[in-house]
């Protein structure tokens, strides 16, 4: 029977992961599809899942009173959505919203956390990979905060 194992092993997020670890995470994975406009998750909801995007585009949004949904970042092919499942209190920080028809691999965070409790090496490996995702996202948001193209830029005249 065809499993998700080769698909997961071939995804950039899992690149270089030991085959035995790939097998373990595959046991917590499922193929999912989202329609354009569908909410994958809402801010404040329990975060028991994460998604690895195979194809499509999703938005991370914050709702601001009086301003509606503000997109803070979009994610596409090869990106990972959702890291709140790995850090207590396991609560989504943003709305996650499919902008286009999106195919993804969904991972059950509770299932994985259970495996981490007995396989610390797997837990460390995943924590490292998610730290990298968080670091990159923090870096990108720092640049957004700098307002790179604001009125303070240039103007040597």
């Amino acid at each position: 029977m065809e499993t998700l194992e080769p698909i997961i092993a071939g995804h950039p997020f899992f690149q270089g992961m030991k085959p035995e670890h790939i097998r373990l995470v595959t046991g917590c994975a499922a193929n999912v599809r989202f329609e354009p406009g569908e909410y994958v998750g809402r801010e404040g909801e329990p975060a028991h899942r994460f998604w690895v995007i195979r194809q499509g585009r999703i938005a991370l949004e914050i709702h601001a009173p009086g301003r509606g949904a503000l997109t803070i970042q979009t994610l596409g092919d090869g990106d990972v959505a959702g890291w709140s499942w790995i850090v207590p209190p396991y609560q989504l920080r943003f709305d996650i919203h499919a902008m286009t028809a999106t195919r993804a691999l969904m991972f059950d965070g509770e299932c994985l956390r259970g495996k981490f409790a007995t396989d610390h090496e797997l837990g460390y490996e995943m924590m490292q990979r998610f730290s990298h995702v968080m670091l990159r996202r923090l870096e990108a948001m720092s640049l957004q905060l700098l307002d790179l193209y604001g009125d303070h830029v240039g103007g040597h005249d």
Partner: protein
Amino acid sequence: MTDPARPPAERGAPEGHPDPRFARVPQAGPPAAPDPMRPVRWRVLRNESETHDTFTLTLEPAEERPPFRFAPGQFNMLYAPGVGEAAISMSGRAGAADRIAHTIRAVGRVTTSLRARRRGDEIGLRGPFGAPWPVALAHGHDVLLVAGGIGLAPLRPALLEIFDHRERFGRVSLLFGARSPRDLLFAREIETWRGRFDVDVEVTVDRAGPEWRGTVGVVTTLVPQARFDPAGTAAFVCGPEVMMSFTVRELERRGVPHDQVWISMERNMRCGLGLCGHCQFGPLFVCKDGPVFRYDRVAALLGVHEV
């Protein structure tokens, strides 16, 4: 000063022009080597709004002069009479030109004054100055252009030149980031470029409301997904310095060596000749040695505060 005895066509400055710098335009006589410090009169042919704070000024010569030639990435000193000069890159097709386009962001006194110029108005121009994008060096290679904000303007002549000789290059990609959807420069032209099969165009904005259906995030986040061969790519990067530094970091992660990356620096340029020192950048002068630098030649200086 102007000589009222000469016919008007031979005089450089309009009679009674309030700005004495125009009066320094040489009178008719044997051709002399052009003085790079002397602005030449050019006339506004068009002034078109690009976004809420940017515009494209297309100029034609207001006096007889040899054909104007420039290479992609070079800049002119545009002189708004009575206000001052600003260094502005050309944004149109390079080569010999009797019309020159400059896409400008109105942020200071000179650029705000230039924005108010209408068809028929005259301004001064010195140039072209500076080192261009090394487009010919990219022959046979992939080309990646990464632009942030108004940084797309100096890259546009390079992209147009690549389009003119498309068969000489490998895969061509343009990654463009702007502050918000309303700040997207050349929006209609970008749509045309997106429709071409021989260039990958990705656009992102730093912030957007629900009406924006495109990518949100800084331009550096586009680099990991861009399609190019890291070992055989020439990367041209133009935008705010922080954006360029982080872009180079992403290119490093993709395996692009520093000697295959060129950046365009911005400093307070005055003379355009490396004489006045206003744009000194360590041992270099941005106006003369740049503005386009190969990254490995300036990498150490970029990390130094207040250089």
